[in-house]
């Protein structure tokens, strides 16, 4: 058992992704500043994207572009799964959209409330 099969490359990405998710969640839950919370969200989002990409990896695969580099007939054994790549593309864009909206919330809150501290925003409860 060498290190590579014991600890395959995609697992490294997966683990890093999962760690990023935890880090992001930690940030979202403990940081009081809205901007930091948004950064936490971005971290988490990125972590998820990494997890997604890692899932699509096939041992020894290359990019799923069937051209001169990868012949059509043997492509099945040589490329990584294109689906997670496609999904992650979409997920990134969605994450971007959410981040943008969150940021504009933060901006507006700062404008009207002159604060970015989330524990100051607790007037509606119960």
């Amino acid at each position: 058992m060498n290190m590579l099969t014991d600890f395959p490359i995609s697992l490294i990405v997966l683990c890093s992704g999962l760690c990023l998710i935890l880090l992001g969640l930690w940030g979202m839950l403990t940081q009081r500043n809205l901007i930091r919370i948004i950064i936490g969200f971005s971290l988490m989002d990125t972590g998820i994207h990494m997890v997604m990409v890692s899932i699509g990896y096939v041992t020894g695969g290359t990019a799923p572009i069937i051209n001169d580099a990868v012949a059509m007939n043997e492509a099945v054994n040589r490329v990584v799964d294109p689906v997670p790549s496609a999904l992650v593309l979409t997920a990134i864009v969605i994450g971007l959209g959410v981040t943008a909206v969150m940021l504009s919330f933060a901006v507006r809150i700062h404008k009207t409330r002159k604060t970015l501290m989330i524990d100051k925003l607790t007037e509606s409860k119960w």
Partner: protein
Amino acid sequence: MVVTNTIIDVLLQPLGIYVLALGAGFLIPLFYRVRRGSGVLVFFAALAAMAVIAGLNLLAIINGAPAIDIETAGIKPPFSINLRFGLLEGGFVLAVNTVALLGAWHYLPRLKQQAASLLLYLILVMGINGMVMTRDLFNLFIFIEITSIATYALIGMGRSDNVLAAGFKYVMATSIASAFFLLGTIFLYYQTGTLNIDDIIMNRDLIEGPIGLIATLFLLTSLLVELKPYPANGWGLDVYETADSGIASLISVGVSAGVFFALYKLLPLMDNYLTSIALIGGLTFLISNLIGLKQENTKRLLGYSSIGQMGLLTLAVALLKQTDADAHLPLIVGGLFVNHLFAKAGLFWLAGIVNRKCIGEWSSGVKRSEVLLLGVLITALVGLPPFPGFWAKWELVMLLAGNELFGWIALILIGSLLEAAYLFRWFSYARQQDSEQPDDAPAEASFSFMQIMPVTIAALLLFITGYGMAKTMHVASPEVFLPLVAGFAMWLIDRSHGRLKNLPMLAAVAVGGYLLTNDLEGINRLFSYLLVGGGILVSIAAMYRNDNRRGFYPLLTVLLLSLATLLRAQTSLEFFFSWELMTLSSYLLVTLGRNGVKPALTYLLFSLASAYFILAGFSVAYGATGSLLLADLGNSGDSVAIIFSLLAAGFIIKMGGFGVHIWLPGAYAESDDDFTAILSAVVSKAGIFGLFIIAAHLGVRSDIGLDPGYVLGWIGILTATFGALMAVFQEDIKRLVAYSSMGQLGYIVTGMALMSHLGWVSAMYITVNHFLFKGILFLSIAGVILRTNERLMYKMGGLIKNMPFTFTFVMIAIIAMSGVPPLSGYGGKWMLFNALMEKQWYWITAFAFFSSAVAFLYMFRLLQTVFLGQRKLEHAEIREAPMILLLPQMVMIVGIMVISAYPKLLIDPLSAAIDPWIANTLVWQGTALHAHFGHWNAPMIMAVVAGVFMIPLILLSLFALSMKIQKVEQFNIVYAAERPRRPEETHFAYKFFAHYDRAIGFTVRPRATAFWNSVVEWSHSAGASLRIFYNGNGQTYALFVIMYFVGLFLFNGGLAL
């Protein structure tokens, strides 16, 4: 041409919904720039088209077309994304699009300020459609995100400070939920190699091990969290509270609907977690309704209700799956959903229009039409007939009963009761100052008409869907709906003025009642005379008031006719439908009283509790027999005792039994005076009819191990005793008679509980008698109150001089009530005691004696303090009660006299009607009735009494009246060597039985009231302590979301990993 046609064809497919929404969405900013109006036009055209497309396709499917599968990209699934438009999808999409269209109408004043908000709204709706229709997991994620982002933005459109904070919390929580969804999706893909939901379901064996568990739980958590389960829902509540009603309504009904459907789609993957889902749904339903009790903020209240309803839906769908009852899905889930959709959306819009922060502030300045709509929507939301929620809840409960899931039934019913409590509390506020409102000014009216239109349409749609559901459940016969139709017709002429409105009402009830009841037989027929005929008789008196009485006549029509439909009910469903209709209409009638709103709420809550007991009882019966026929109740085998107890509990509550009577005095006392007569004389008999039903079907035809009849007998007699005792200490005339009513009903309960021929005859005889004398008493009291404007007895006195007829009627009624021979009361008591002795219920007999003795106290007090003693100076000039009040009383006096002298006239039909159930044991010897112990010869007693009364009377007349008699001046009495100057000094009336109070008053200290108050207190404080999680901090809410996942993981075997 061909191309155009093809395009139209494409657009008319469900796919057209996306195409139109997106196309219009993309173009709206352009149109808007050119001309604002054109942007709005495009917006509405697109929304309407979306609804129409959904409607057309759904219609096709209902007419038998197969479900539509839409494939994209020209590739077969699972390799491409496909959508499905089947029956359920179609229903959801159509409902959501309709409500979105109406919502846009409501929301338009704010939406049209920005092109962006128009397109966001449009795409939000499309996103919901997509969530419902898509069959691809990742595509589902995208639609969730489209919906979420559009929601975020529309929330953020609000300008208040709070809404931004709430919006941010919302974004935080849902973005974590979305992240979970994405993680779940990708790991499912990892295991199954596909994203198509059907394909995943087909290959669900591949989902295994820790990864499979975690991935599934990620998906589940995400969807559940989006449905806002307790306690991970503070973010949702904050948005409901702060966001504009337009978007809040769409989140509540639209977004939730989409997520709910998504959950439904994925349920096949969650077979192992159905219990968790049901628990979460159930707890959310229960707890959010409990917390709702504490809520004052209008929109947050609606938020709690929304969350509760989604909990109920979740619960329902999980249990349906668990019991493999997919066939019931459309009716139950569809019904609950449609009900929630229109009612909640309507309520949010209404809250937006009325725009009061707290529900307490609804008590002023709310227009009549708005109150009416509020009432309709709340009624629907609580699940009262004829709305879809009623039918769906019934089906759900029956289904659960069929699978013996009684715990869930209890949970659902308790939750529903709590929900009714706070919603109707809100309605009570709105009703309170209603009467002070002038009619809407015309200029304002047209504006408010446009505003109120979407709410009105929502209400109408509720009626229509309710009727539709009734049709699918095969109960939509014209007879069942006759009360509502007649009531509606009366409502149309409700704007006209004056007392003559009573005539068409009487005609409607007479004709309707005849149509409904003329083919009845046996005891039901006898009841129909009492309830419909009696109802009409008492209602004649309603003409004594000449004011407008808005709402009175329509509601009374519904009430009386629903009593008729109650009698002809063959199935428990029809029975329950009529029962609820009766409850509702009588509740509303009570609110019409001067201070009727608060006691009416108590009345309603107890009535609903009663209804839910009945429902529970029917459900157990259905579980045991699989039949809804009332006639099959007796075949319930071992469950008879429990069914009997549940149903009896329901009817006892409705009749104001011992311990659950606290609604009764308030409701009776504060109703309109003539309506109190109807309530006591007529409506209370419905409970007796119910008791008869169960006694007949369950009590007789089965041998019950533990004798619930005996318990019932005790309840009845305790009710009689304590009713009488409490009546003794009342100062308020109506409360006195109200408690007396309670006591008299107690005897009837005991009679019914006897399960013997004589017992039932006595119960029925007392019932008729009670109708007669209580009708007289309450109508007389109405007259007294009309003339004196007082209800406190010590403020009256000596009225015999002004109102001799009323006095005479009251006196006869009281003799008839007391059981003193020769009037009819004695017959009832005699039969009851004989039946009790035959049954060897000696202790109950003793109590019955005691209570009838106590009854003398309050009866005398009524006569003495109101009609005798010293007249108040200000009452010197008052006149006799109006003729129209006296007329029905006279008829009833005649009735009393007839059944007193010739009880056989009444007892024979009663006996014959009871005979099929329990064989006749009565022995007649001429006019004398013989029982095992004693005998009773009513005509002879009448003759002897007449004789012994007339002879001294004549003698006295000869001795005394031959003299010249001088009328004594009012104060010409010797009173402690003083001649009193004012009646107040000598009219002994206040605390008339103070010594009795000293002696045994301790037995009637309001313990029941204290108990129920503490129940209320407890549930409020439970609500208060359950809501401490909502600390307003977005991070806490986000933490709850994560905890939900962790909790689900641990609960579902995560520990074992």
